[in-house]
């Protein structure tokens, strides 16, 4: 953790001497809070010390010490570093007070921690499983939980080398031999629960204009073209008006984090590509940054510039793509989309020439990047940045911004106020469109972003139209950063030290976050000094931004829910992980 950050941290130990102590383990930082007093401490942090933004909640299973540790990362929405809170609880009887009433943004994250690690949050209004299904046995991120095709605790597996067995995993461990049923379970007589538990969590309204109206539940998805993937929205409707709404996810869940804990540190890099598969370069960025923090190394100068160039190109393509999809959701079927895909293809051509793959770039390494720019590519990037992309962004602006249908459908729809946006832990363009000028590149700078001249875009209506305008404006700002980075791009090595496939990471924890195109992308990695991470958590921006979906949709029409979802800009690979 940086020095700048330490200065601004309040002295919680003096304030709450009996409940709070410093986390003094080597490589760790933050405060350990007694579980019973967490709410009081969090209350003071929010209302006295200004930590109004609860960015990330996760937990770690310290199996050898027989305890679970819930980890909170809090920030001030005016900028600055993290304040880390930790709460320890037993593995058998885990109980931690829920922070949902203080920080509504905790809702989905606490459900995730309950689902994957089995920490019970008392006081949570809707503590159901979220990523796995209701009938799932166990909590998969606990260290003693094993997946059906379990082979070994960590990679590399001995069966591949030196034993050299080319057998498929399903032959080694065929279906029906890889299942474990709970004691006393009879598959013949079992009928799965319906969706009653889910439906009962919807808040019924009182009817409109004093009329006693009948309210009905409509399921949108999981197979629906406008949900951008396998995503389901359960909406309670009064006529066409949305009374309440719940997002239901997990249909694409593959337990990315468990895979990450089986992998070695480097092996995780290509897996991060598959989180938000539109923006693999930014995903690499966040992970590389986090592990470099643990390793205590810095990338070389040229690598820093190459990273920024790739990350900003990613932002341009993501924002163009998001605008195209938003227009799809508005019913302008695929014409705007195809226009922006042209630009995306040209950017992907660059990624392909540099990294070898259009979408699954796997370009970043600890201490640098994997390859230098091949001959002629720098000129291609210049052609795009200085000529084509500015022209095309202005064309898109002329094409869509003044369109009366776009304005009628977007202005004043799906409004999120500034207070709600912060409380619900939204990030990225959603947060900035609601009037909070919070951009991690400025608020808590990483890499070399402090060297560039660019504006943090902010708009104040918090509606779909502002989220659309923010994306266009951010694409323009990215081009400004790109122009400066291309001008200053130094010569030199692209990797600090030799290429290494097995890095020895000192024991400790690190939380690294980048301003991804969709919002704050954070990685929480715990190392115990071995070749594999003990804990690997991803704070996925589109997952947490969905906490605000119900707030934006209530009182609106069902047809607008599709557009509101489009304006959040989600990717299911990242939500479900």
């Amino acid at each position, binding site marked *: 953790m940086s020095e700048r950050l330490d200065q601004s941290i309040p002295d919680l130990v003096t304030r709450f001497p009996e409940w709070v102590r410093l986390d003094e383990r080597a490589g760790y930082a933050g405060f350990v809070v007694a579980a019973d007093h967490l709410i009081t401490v969090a209350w003071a942090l929010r209302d006295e010390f200004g930590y109004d933004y609860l960015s990330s909640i996760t937990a770690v299973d310290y199996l050898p010490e027989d305890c679970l540790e819930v980890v909170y990362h809090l920030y001030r929405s005016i900028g600055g570093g993290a304040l880390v809170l930790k709460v320890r609880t037993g593995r058998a009887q885990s109980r931690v007070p829920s922070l949902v009433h203080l920080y509504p943004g905790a809702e989905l994250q606490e459900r995730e921690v309950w689902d994957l690690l089995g920490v019970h949050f008392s006081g949570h209004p809707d503590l159901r499983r979220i990523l796995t299904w209701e009938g799932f046995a166990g909590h998969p991120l606990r260290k003693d939980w094993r997946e059906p095709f379990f082979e070994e605790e960590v*990679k*590399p*597996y001995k*069966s*591949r*080398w*030196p*034993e*050299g*067995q*080319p057998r*498929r995993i399903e032959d080694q461990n065929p279906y029906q031999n890889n299942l474990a049923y709970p004691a006393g379970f009879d598959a013949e007589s079992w009928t799965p629960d319906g969706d009653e538990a889910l439906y009962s969590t919807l808040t019924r309204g009182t009817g409109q204009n004093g009329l006693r109206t009948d309210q009905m539940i409509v399921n949108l998805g999981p197979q629906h073209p406008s949900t951008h993937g396998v995503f389901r929205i359960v909406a309670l409707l009064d006529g066409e008006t949305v009374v309440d709404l719940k997002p239901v996810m997990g249909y694409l869940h593959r337990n990315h984090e468990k895979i990450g804990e089986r*992998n*070695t540190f*480097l*092996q*995780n*890099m*290509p*897996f991060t590509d598959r989180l938000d598969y539109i923006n693999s370069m930014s995903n690499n960025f966040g992970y590389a940054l986090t592990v470099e923090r643990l390793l205590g190394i810095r990338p070389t100068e040229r690598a820093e510039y190459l990273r920024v160039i790739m990350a900003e190109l990613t932002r341009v393509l993501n924002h163009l793509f998001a605008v195209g999809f938003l227009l799809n959701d508005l019913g302008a079927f695929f*014409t705007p989309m195809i*226009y922006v895909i*042209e630009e995306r*293809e*040209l950017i992907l*051509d660059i990624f*392909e*020439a*540099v*990294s*070898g*793959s259009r979408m*699954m770039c*796997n370009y970043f390494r600890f201490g640098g990047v*994997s*390859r230098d720019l*091949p*001959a002629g590519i720098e000129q*291609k990037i210049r*052609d*795009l940045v200085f*000529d*084509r992309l500015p022209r095309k962004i202005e*064309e898109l602006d*002329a*094409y*869509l*911004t*003044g*369109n*009366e*249908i*776009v*304005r*009628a459908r977007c*202005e004043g729809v799906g409004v999120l106020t500034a207070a709600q946006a912060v409380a619900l832990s939204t990030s990225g363009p959603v947060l900035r469109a609601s009037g909070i000028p919070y951009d991690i590149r400025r608020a808590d700078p990483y890499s070399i972003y402090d060297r560039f001249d660019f504006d943090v875009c902010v708009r104040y209506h918090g509606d779909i139209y502002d989220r659309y305008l923010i994306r266009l404006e951010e694409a323009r700002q990215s081009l400004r950063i790109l122009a400066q980075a291309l001008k200053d791009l130094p010569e030199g090595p692209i990797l600090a030290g030799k*290429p290494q*496939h097995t890095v020895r990471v000192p024991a400790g924890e690190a939380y690294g976050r980048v301003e991804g195109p969709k919002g704050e992308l954070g990685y929480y990695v715990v190392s115990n000094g071995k070749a594999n991470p003990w804990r690997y958590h991803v704070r996925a921006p589109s997952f947490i931004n969905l906490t605000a979906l119900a707030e934006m949709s209530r009182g609106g029409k069902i047809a607008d829910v599709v557009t509101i979802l489009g304006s959040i800009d989600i990717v299911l690979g990242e939500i479900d992980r």
Partner: protein
Amino acid sequence: MKIHGFGIVRGLWVTFKHFVTTYIEDVRRGPRFYKTPAGIEQRRRADATGIFTVQYPEEKLPVPEEFRYLPFLVYDENPDGSRAVRCTACGICSKVCPPQCIAIVRSSDPATGKSVAAPAEFYIDVDICMNCGFCAEFCPFDAIRMDHDYEVASVDRLAHHIFDLNRLLKSAAYYARIRPTNAAREDEARAAKAAAKKPTPETAA
């Protein structure tokens, strides 16, 4: 908001320009705009206008040198025509592989039973391979490299999707053809290493 429709008309004008440009470009570029490498190259330049798409499979985009698809094993051709497989079965590719799709059996000398630095069998489960390129990146013998051939569809997953040594081996000449600058750089580095190892006549004397 009053709807005058000027914004819609302005947007339609953009669409109309796109529509007309495709025909203007077709007429201007002539028939050589399609199905020629120069035409395909023109359509993906930063100043490209008009038709942007490529009619696969009649037209194929050229892949850049760094493009990676599936891994293959490189062998050098001996003067007598036999194959010298570069792989020494050291297992680094197998260990660094994120989805663990590479399985290697080491060779042993039939007379002595001692292990030999060559693979007896080498398998890659291409269903699991995630095309990350780590195996090629960390191979110390330039023996495993990423291929450009992306048309590998087959009708039977169980029969064809675990590639064996026979399927994986490709010549160094093929490698030099798909990745000329990489191959030249690596050959040079290997030659320099060999020269450093071999005692020169002066030092031997």
